[in-house]
């Protein structure tokens, strides 16, 4: 759809609407993940017995996934740099690389889950595991959603259209990265 209302093109705050709405979406996500993390932390502190369960998560795979996400963030921001110089083709390339990073992340996460389930740790295996699966699952859903948006934005960017969206999906992607930056120590190290 090429017709856009004038309301969409106005920018009284000085922040373009697309970026402004992204910030508000991130704010609403902060409280979703923040609330979940806060409840996990308070439960965890009250239940020292959960540490035994936490010993079963694989720190190396977690670290590898952290590395993957950090790298995908790099390519997301490089896509923004390309879009900033109006190089849509290059931006699209970097966005697709970012989505590839997301795929690798999900594959590794899937391997972890499979291993854990094989060891008999499922969603209902006790407090730690319930939180573990909900936290990583919710985060994984955000990665998945981010990947879909990345590919949509990349398709437009390749034709030099809607380049302002490159920055926005990047912001969102970095936010998802930051969530993982906290999930990693909480689930794989602090135990």
């Amino acid at each position, binding site marked *: 759809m090429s017709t856009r209302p004038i309301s969409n093109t106005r920018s009284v705050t000085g922040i373009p609407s697309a970026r402004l709405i992204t910030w508000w979406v991130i704010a609403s996500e*902060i409280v979703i993940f923040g609330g979940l993390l806060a409840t996990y932390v308070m439960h965890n502190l009250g239940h020292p017995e959960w540490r035994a369960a936490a010993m079963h998560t694989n720190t190396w795979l977690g670290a590898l996934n952290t590395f993957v996400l950090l790298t995908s963030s790099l390519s*997301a921001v490089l896509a923004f740099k390309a879009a900033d110089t109006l190089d849509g083709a290059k931006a699209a390339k970097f966005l697709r690389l970012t989505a590839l990073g997301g795929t690798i992340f999900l594959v590794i996460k899937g391997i972890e889950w499979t291993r854990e389930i094989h060891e008999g740790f499922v969603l209902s295996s006790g407090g730690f595991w319930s939180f573990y699966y909900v936290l990583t699952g919710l985060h994984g859903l955000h990665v998945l959603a981010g990947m879909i948006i990345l590919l949509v934005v990349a398709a437009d960017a390749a034709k030099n259209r809607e380049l302002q969206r490159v920055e926005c999906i990047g912001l969102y992607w970095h936010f998802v990265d930051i969530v993982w930056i*906290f999930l990693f120590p909480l689930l794989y*190290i*602090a135990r």
Partner: protein
Amino acid sequence: MISEAQPMISEAHIHHPNYVKIWAILVVLLMVSLLGSMSSIRSVVLIAAFGVALTKTYLVTTNFMHVNVEKRWVPYLMGIFLAFMVILFAAVAPDVMKHSGLRWSNDAAKHAVESGMQPASTKHE
């Protein structure tokens, strides 16, 4: 359909720091937290892990998300939303984290802790 202006990418081209360098620092930080996790002193593990997480967050938000050049109120707004979560934690933790308080005690939770700790100390794999 005539519009007032085409949507802007951003008001002015912003200064792009050397992103690869930032990424390299982030990876080094990841190593630090891994090294820290090998320590047998719990406080070292925790400080390394969460110190690194906070530093990484700072690097990502300023350099990748550009909040330092964004309008001032944006980081403040995010901070307020985070502060609400801190308040939530502070007011809920006395009930959920602790298992007894002034004239109350959560026996079910205490029991869960006790029975959970037992196998961990007896059967040491």
